[in-house]
């Protein structure tokens, strides 16, 4: 590497590190992103696995003490406090002739009142339903036994549920969004620096002098791309380091998901993000070198940011599968990451090919910027 590239890189890094806005931009994404995601997952998990007592309204408990005891054992209790706003009451009513009906072997009526379409109360409703069914089954078995019949008669088929979703692939569903987040970190974290060293350079009137120095515009662009890419990688690295820590606090295993991001996996991801960081920053520099001011560049770049976001979210949620995705910039890294967290073997050839293609694209973009900076029309905005 030429010493001019190193000189530019060193100077720009020093300049950028002293820019609180750039550093904060790079770090905030890495810090707050995983934390936000963890909080969201945490609520998701605790909603799905709420095993605290369900408190419902019960009337006529004195008529069916055995059932009430059974429900209590299943964690369903009489409610004393009022229902919170937005929650429909769930109520059970046992009639006075309960005992008589049971004794006579007739269906004993219990009235189950609730808003069965309410998503938020689904878990509670299904627990009450389950408990009632279990009690009913228990009585059936006792009655059959009393009449000398084997309770198995009531179970003509035996359904064995086999969930083909492995723990890893179910995790992939959830971790898909984490992956998109990691991929986008290289686009986010270096953005402010990229704008500052291109459009910012023009805005503070230092571009002309810099271009009059004895270094080729290719060297200048390379140095600047490396600077912004360093920041992009810094943000990505922080995200990769923080994510496992944050997710250690989310009890994902309780909903049958194992997040096992070994440090080797994370290290490999970091390496694979390097070409993408170069690509992202080259793209941003290409756009923001055309802008006259920091603000103008910010506008362009936020539009530009939509492209990788739409691309990665689109592929993630539309579940698009195509061989070409393995080789393109961004999607190549995305597919490789997906395979890695699903525990599938990494397609090494495709990963290498996408790295090379990403680097080539970055190189072409850099040459394009260098060419642009040799054009007086672009430099002086004539």
């Amino acid at each position, binding site marked *: 590497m030429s*010493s*001019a590239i190193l*000189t*530019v890189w060193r*100077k720009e890094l*020093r*300049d950028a590190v*002293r*820019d609180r806005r750039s550093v904060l931009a790079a770090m905030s994404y890495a810090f707050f992103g995983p934390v936000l995601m963890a909080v969201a997952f945490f609520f998701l998990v605790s909603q799905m696995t709420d095993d605290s007592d369900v408190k419902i309204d019960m009337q006529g408990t004195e008529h069916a003490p055995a059932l009430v005891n059974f429900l209590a054992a299943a964690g369903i209790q009489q409610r004393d406090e009022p229902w919170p706003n937005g929650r429909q009451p769930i109520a059970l009513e046992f009639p006075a002739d309960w005992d008589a009906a049971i004794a006579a072997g007739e269906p004993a009526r219990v009235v189950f009142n609730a808003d069965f379409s309410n998503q938020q109360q689904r878990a509670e409703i299904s627990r009450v339903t389950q408990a009632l069914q279990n009690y009913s089954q228990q009585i059936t078995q006792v009655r059959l036994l009393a009449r000398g019949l084997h309770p198995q008669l009531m179970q003509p088929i035996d359904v064995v549920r086999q969930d083909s979703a492995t723990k890893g692939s179910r995790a992939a569903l959830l971790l898909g969004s984490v992956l998109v987040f990691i991929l986008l970190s290289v686009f986010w974290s270096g953005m402010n620096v990229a704008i500052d060293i291109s459009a910012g*350079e023009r805005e*503070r*009137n*230092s*571009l*002309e*002098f810099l*271009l*009059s*120095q*004895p*270094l*080729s515009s290719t060297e200048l662009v390379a140095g600047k791309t490396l600077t912004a890419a360093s920041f992009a990688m810094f943000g990505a690295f922080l995200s990769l380091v923080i994510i496992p820590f944050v997710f250690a606090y989310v009890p994902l295993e309780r909903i049958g998901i194992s997040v096992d991001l070994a440090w080797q996996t994370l290290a490999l991801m970091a390496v694979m993000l390097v070409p993408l960081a170069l690509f992202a920053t080259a793209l941003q520099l290409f756009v923001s070198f055309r802008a006259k001011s920091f603000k103008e560049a910010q506008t362009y770049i936020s539009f530009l940011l939509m492209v990788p976001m739409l691309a990665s979210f689109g592929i993630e949620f539309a579940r698009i599968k195509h061989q070409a995705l393995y080789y393109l910039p961004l999607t190549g890294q995305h597919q490789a990451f997906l395979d890695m967290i699903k525990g599938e073997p990494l397609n090494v050839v495709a990963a290498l090919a996408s790295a090379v293609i990403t680097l080539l694209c970055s190189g072409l973009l850099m040459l394009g910027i260098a060419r642009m900076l040799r054009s*007086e029309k672009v*430099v*002086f905005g*004539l």
Partner: protein
Amino acid sequence: MISVQNLTKSFGDIRALDNLTFHAPDGQITGLLGPNGAGKTTCLRTIYGLQKADSGQALIDTVDALLDPLAARQLIGIFPDKFGLYERLTAQEQIAFFAELHGLQGAARNQAVTAVIERLGMTELAHRRSAGFSQGQRMKVALAQAIVHQPKHLILDEPSRGLDVMSTRILRDLLRELRAQGTCILFSSHVMQEVAALCDRVVVVAKGKVAAEGSPDELCAMTGESALEEAFVKIIGTDEGIAA
């Protein structure tokens, strides 16, 4: 020595440079004098290869900036039309950056930076970030950046604009000192007093052409005026002036 030969450049219908020819010899201060919009900045940018002429050439010693911009820029120091500073860097760091771009490394770089900082009397500025610098202090940093590698040629675009008396004096003293060392100095200005006070040779430019050329005294003699300002008005203001 900087020589400009038959430079022509148009922006659309506007002819910024029209067959412009002049020389700036070593060890002399050559002033490019002209009204705003005469093509001075375009001419200077063409010399260091930032703009391309439609025809003609500009040579620094024997190097054409159009053909070999990097070699040409090695030979010159530039004080540009606009000099923005890196506000988060200290004066010393900025100067060191440009010294490195000119190929100075390690001890040689540090020595050059220290020398230029002392020479411009900005030792107390050296370790301050340039964010709060006054116009004069900014000018000093820009000057230091231009001469840290001790170029044989120095090109300055309107160097004294916005400067107070003290800063202007420092600038003039420096330019005279560099001239004594044999540096070829070319600067543009539209300020008469400055040109009269400083220049060995004046090239009057109007509408992209050389309207007159000579020492300040010669220009006055040419036009029969006693003050350069009157001579200047006569030269660019009337056709007779140019003919004379």
